[in-house]
C-alpha cells in the first residue's frame, strides 16, 4: 500500500516530521517529491500516533513545507542483487553511478540484514597471507575476521588497505574471491586512488564499489556500509565467493549518526555520539564471518581515522570492542620512515591463534611471535628510558634490546609497498633477528623450536656490541 501525503509540519536538520499519516511503519522507505521535480529518499525513524519522523538521506535543504509530497512505500530500503554487480560502481544508497544499466536483480534484499545465528557460525581459522610481515607474522589475519585499521589523518592507511587487497591470498587454494568497497565521505582523490589500484592489479572486475564522496549527502553514509555488506552477503553466501570488504572511513559514518542523534535531541553519550553507537557499529561489523556448510566468507577491514590520533576516542574505542583486533598505524614510525608504519605493540589480531601453527603457517609461529613481541616491547621500554636518562643509564641487556627494537622496525616491519613476502620469509626473518640474543633471553620459545630454527641459523652472534646508530626521532628527520 503506497501512501502519499503533503503534510510536512516540521523540518530540523536532516529530519522531517510528517503529520496526519496512518498505517506508517517503523523503518519504512520514504520518497520525497520536491516541486523542482527532484526525488529524495528517506526512512522512518519513529512513528508516534499519526506523526512520522523521517530522516532524509540527501538532507532537507530546499524541502518546501507546503509543497513537498511525501510517499511512504510500505517497505524497507532494499537493493537489487545479481552477479552483475561485480565490476560496477554504486552510490551510497546502492544506485548505479557509473552510467551503466540498472541491475536486473536475482533478488531484492533489505540492507539492514538479519543477525547471524551464533550457532550457524563457523570459526574463522584459515590463514590469509597478506604478504605484509607486521600483519602475517604478528597480527595474522584469517578468513572471516573483522580487522580494522586505526589510522590518523595523513597516514598511509589507504595504501596499506590497497596492498592487502592486492596481495591477500589463502595458500594452496584456487577460489573465487571478490572485493566490496564501501566509501563514506572520502575525497574524490582517495576514491580515484583505490579505483586505479584495483584496475592495475586486475581486481576491478571482481570489485563492487559503493561510493559516497566527501561532497555528497552526509546522511546517505548511514546506508552505505549496510548496502556494501548486503552485497557482500549475497556474493559470499549465495554465490560462494570469498569476499574482502573494505569500509572507509568509519569516522565519517559515525559523524552522520551523530548528526541524526543531535537532531533528534537524544541524550548524547561521549563526545556527542549517541549511546547506541556500539550497537549500531556492531550491527554492521558482525555481518562479517563464516557460516557452517557455506562456501563463501566475508572478511572485513574497516578503516577509521582517529580524531587527534586518540585511541580512546569513542569511534576507535567502540570499534575495538567489536572487532577481532586492530592494526594501528603510528605517526612516529611514519616519521622514522618505517613503511607501512604499523605499530605492532597495540595492534592485535585476536583470531591469529587458530589461524597459525602447524599445517597453517608453521609450527614455530606462535612461540616466535611471542618472543618477538616481548623483545620489541622491552626494546621500546629501553628506548623510553634512554630518552629520559640518556644512554649511560641503560644496562648491557637494555642496549641489546634497544638494538633489537630498531632492527625489528627497520627490517621486519618496514617493507616495500609492492613487496609481497611469503610467510616463510616472514618467519625466517624473525629468527634471524633473534640471533641477537643469548639463549637464556628466549624464554617464550620452547626448546625444540630453538634447536630447530634458532640454532640452525647459527647462533652466537649474541655478543653485545655498542650501538652506533641510534635511531632517535630527531636523527632520522
Amino acid at each position, binding site marked *: 500500500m503506497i501512501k502519499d501525503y503533503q503534510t510536512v509540519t516540521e523540518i530540523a536538520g536532516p529530519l522531517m516530521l510528517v503529520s496526519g499519516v496512518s498505517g506508517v511503519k517503523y523503518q519504512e522507505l520514504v520518497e520525497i517529491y520536491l516541486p523542482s521535480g527532484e526525488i529524495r529518499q528517506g526512512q522512518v525513524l519513529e512513528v508516534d500516533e499519526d506523526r512520522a519522523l523521517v530522516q532524509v538521506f540527501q538532507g532537507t535543504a530546499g524541502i518546501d513545507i507546503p509543497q513537498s509530497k511525501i510517499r511512504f512505500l510500505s517497505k524497507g530500503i532494499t537493493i537489487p542483487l545479481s552477479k552483475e554487480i561485480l565490476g560496477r560502481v554504486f552510490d551510497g544508497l546502492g544506485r548505479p553511478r557509473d552510467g551503466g544499466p540498472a541491475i536486473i536483480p536475482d533478488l531484492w534484499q533489505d540492507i539492514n540484514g538479519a543477525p547471524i545465528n551464533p550457532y550457524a557460525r563457523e570459526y574463522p581459522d584459515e590463514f590469509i597471507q597478506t604478504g605484509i610481515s607486521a600483519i602475517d607474522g604478528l597480527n595474522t589475519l584469517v578468513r572471516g575476521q573483522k580487522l580494522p585499521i586505526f589510522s590518523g589523518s595523513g597516514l598511509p592507511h589507504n595504501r596499506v588497505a590497497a596492498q592487502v587487497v592486492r596481495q591477500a591470498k589463502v595458500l594452496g587454494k584456487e577460489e573465487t574471491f571478490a572485493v566490496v568497497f564501501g566509501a563514506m565521505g572520502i575525497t574524490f582523490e582517495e576514491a580515484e586512488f583505490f579505483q586505479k589500484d584495483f584496475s592495475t592489479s586486475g581486481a576491478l572486475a571482481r570489485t563492487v564499489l559503493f561510493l559516497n564522496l566527501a561532497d555528497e549527502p552526509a546522511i546517505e553514509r548511514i546506508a552505505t556500509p549496510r548496502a556494501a555488506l548486503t552485497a557482500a552477503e549475497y556474493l559470499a553466501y549465495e554465490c560462494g565467493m570469498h569476499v574482502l570488504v573494505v569500509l572507509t572511513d568509519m569516522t565519517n559514518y559515525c559523524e552522520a549518526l551523530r548528526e541524526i542523534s543531535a537532531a533528534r535531541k537524544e541524550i548524547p553519550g561521549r563526545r556527542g555520539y549517541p549511546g547506541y553507537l556500539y*550497537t549500531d557499529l556492531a550491527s554492521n561489523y558482525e555481518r562479517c564471518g563464516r557460516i557452517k556448510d557455506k562456501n563463501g566468507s566475508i572478511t572485513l577491514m574497516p578503516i577509521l581515522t582517529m580524531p587527534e590520533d586518540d585511541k580512546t576516542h569513542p569511534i576507535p574505542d567502540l570499534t575495538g570492542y567489536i572487532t577481532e583486533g586492530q592494526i594501528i598505524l603510528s605517526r612516529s614510525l611514519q616519521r622514522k620512515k618505517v613503511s607501512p608504519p604499523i605499530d605492532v605493540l597495540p595492534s592485535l589480531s585476536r583470531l591469529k591463534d587458530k589461524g597459525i601453527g602447524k599445517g597453517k603457517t608453521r609450527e614455530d609461529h606462535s612461540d616466535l611471535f611471542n618472543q618477538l613481541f616481548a623483545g620489541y616491547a622491552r626494546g621500546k621500554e629501553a628506548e623510553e628510558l634512554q630518552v629520559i636518562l640518556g644512554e649511560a643509564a641503560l644496562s648491557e641487556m637494555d642496549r641489546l634490546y634497544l638494538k633489537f627494537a630498531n632492527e625489528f622496525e627497520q627490517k621486519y616491519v618496514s617493507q616495500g609497498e609492492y613487496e609481497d613476502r611469503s610467510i616463510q620469509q616472514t618467519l625466517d626473518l624473525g629468527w634471524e633477528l633473534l640471533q641477537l640474543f643469548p639463549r637464556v633471553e628466549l624464554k617464550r620459545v620452547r626448546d625444540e623450536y630453538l634447536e630447530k630454527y634458532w640454532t640452525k641459523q647459527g647462533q652466537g652472534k649474541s655478543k653485545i656490541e655498542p650501538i652506533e646508530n641510534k635511531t632517535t626521532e630527531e636523527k632520522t628527520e
Partner: protein
Amino acid sequence: MKETKGTIVKVSGPLVVANGMAGSKMYDVVRVGDQKLIGEVIRLEGDLASIQVYEETGGIGPGDPVYPTFEPLSVELGPGLIQAIYDGIQRPLNIIREQVGDYITRGIDIPGLDRKKRWHFKPEKKAGDKVKLGSVIGSVPETELVTQKIMVPPGISGEIVEIKEGDFTVTEPIARIKTDDEEKEIYMMQRWPVRRARPYQAKLPVSQPLPTGQRVIDTFFPIAKGGTACVPGPFGSGKTVIQHQFAKWSDADIIIFIGCGERGNEMTDVLLEFPKLTDPKSGQPLMKRTVLIANTSNMPVAAREASVYTGITIAEYFRDMGFSVALQADSTSRWAEAMREISGRLEEMPGEEGYPAYLSARIAEFYERAGSVRTLGDSDKTGSLSVIGSISPPGGDLSDAVVQATLRVVKVFWSLEDKLAFARHFPAISWLNSYSLYTDTVKDFFAEKVAKDFFDQAKAAMLLLEKEAELEEIIRLVGKDSLSPSDRLILEVARSIREDFLHQNAFHEIDTYTSLSKQSAMLDLILYFYEKAKDTMEKGADITDIEKLAVLERIARMKYIPENELEKIKKIKGEIDSELSKLTQTEEVK
C-alpha cells in the same frame, strides 16, 4: 477472561507503546504485531503500556495489535538445559537454525526445553512421603557430569500420592502430590520468572575457594565459591580469555556462560572448543557441565538486557540442587548499555553518563543473587553461585559508572592493564591494583589442602613485586647503576615472578591450567632461588654472575612441566644449589 488486545500507538526502535493494555502487569510478556514478536511490559500508565521488544521492530507501526499473555518473562527449568545454547530469552539457537536457517528471523517461538526428548527419572522419595517446596523427589542423569535433581516447584507441599520411575518427557507427570485442598501433578519441568531471585533457606558465609587453574588469580586474588568478581579492562586486554579460562578450568560443577552483547565468533569458539577439552577431575568433556546464553552484539538489544537474568535464573536453579555453579557475564557493560538505550527511549531522567538512575541498584541486585546458600527442601543441602562479570569501560577508564557501581558490590577486582596486554603479559591482571577480599577466607583451606606456607609464599612474592615497583621508580629517576646488588637481586627475582609465574599462556596445552600444588611448587622454587642467591651474595658472589645463571632458564620453563611430573620442579633446587656454589668456589680460588 475474554481475549483482550491492545493497539500500538508508537514505535521507536526496540520500544513500542500500546493502548488498551489495562490488566497487564509490569514485566508481563506480550506479543507484538501480526508476527507476534516477543516483548515485555516495562512501564504502565493508565491503559498505556511501554513495551521493550526482543526482536527487530522494522515494519511495525501504529494500529498493529498487541496481545497480552498476563505471564511474566520466565525460563523453563528441567532436564535439557546442560549443553544448550540459548538466546537472551531462552530460545534454543540450535533449533532456531534447524527451523529457519542461518539468520535469526522474527516471530520465532520455540520452547527452552525439548518437549519430545525422554529422560530417565529415578524417584528418591516414595508414596506417603511428605514434601515441600524445594524437596528433591528424584533425579535425572543428564550428562556424565551432571545429574539433575527434580525438586518440588513453588506453591506445592503435601504428601506424595504416586511417584514412578521411567522415561518421561519434561511435560509428562512423574508424581502426584496431595496438598491441603487438591491433588497436583508434578512434572520435571518448572517455570520461574527471571527477574525474581529464587528463594533459599539461608545465605551462608562463603568459605571454600574456587580454584581456577590461573596462577595470578588463585595465588594472589582468589575467588571463593559463592563469591563475586569483576574484570574491567579496555578492549583487547583479555577479559574474554579470562572468562573462558574460568569456564574451562574453574572447579565448579556447573558453568553458565552469558555472551551479553559481544562477538558471535566467541560463542562459536566455546561451542567448538569445550566439547574437545576435558575436565581435569572427571576426564569428561567440559561442555557436559556448561549452559551457554548467546545474545551477541548484533542481536536485539532488549533481549540482551534480559539475557543476564535468564542466565542467573538458570544458575540459581542448579544452585538449588546443591551444585557449585559459576556464572560468567561477558560483558556487563553491554547489559548496562541496553538499559541505557531503553531508558533513553522511555525519556527517563538520565543519571551519570546517560545511564538510568537505577543502574547501580540493578547491578547490586544482580550480584546479590550470588552466594553460598542452604537450599530449600527437607535435606540440608548447600549450593553456591559465583558470579564473574566483565566490564568494558570506555577507553578503559575505571571512573566509568558501570565499573564504579560494580566495585561497590563485588569482592574481587581483577584489574586489566593495557600496558601489560601490549607487552603480551597475559593474563594482564595488574598485581598492584587488583584485590580479593577472600584471601583470608580461603587461607586455611590452602594451608590444609595445598601447602602449609602457601599463603606466606604468596605474601612474600607480593612483597617482592611491590618492592620492584618502588625500585622501578628509582631507576626511572636515576638509572639502574645506583642500585645496590641486593636490590638488583630483588629485581631479578621479581622479574622471574612476573615472567615465569604470573605470565600464563591460555593457548599453551600445559600452561593453560595449573593445579594449586603446581602453583605452590613453582612459587616455592622461585623463593628458594631468592633465599639461596641472597646467601651466596653474602658470601661474596657477584650479582651479574647470578643474573646469568643457566638455572634461570630452567626456572623459566617450569610452567611447561606436566602436572604428573611435578617432582621435576623440586629437582631444580639441586641445580640451583650446585650452580650457586660454583660461584663462591671461584671467588675463593681468586
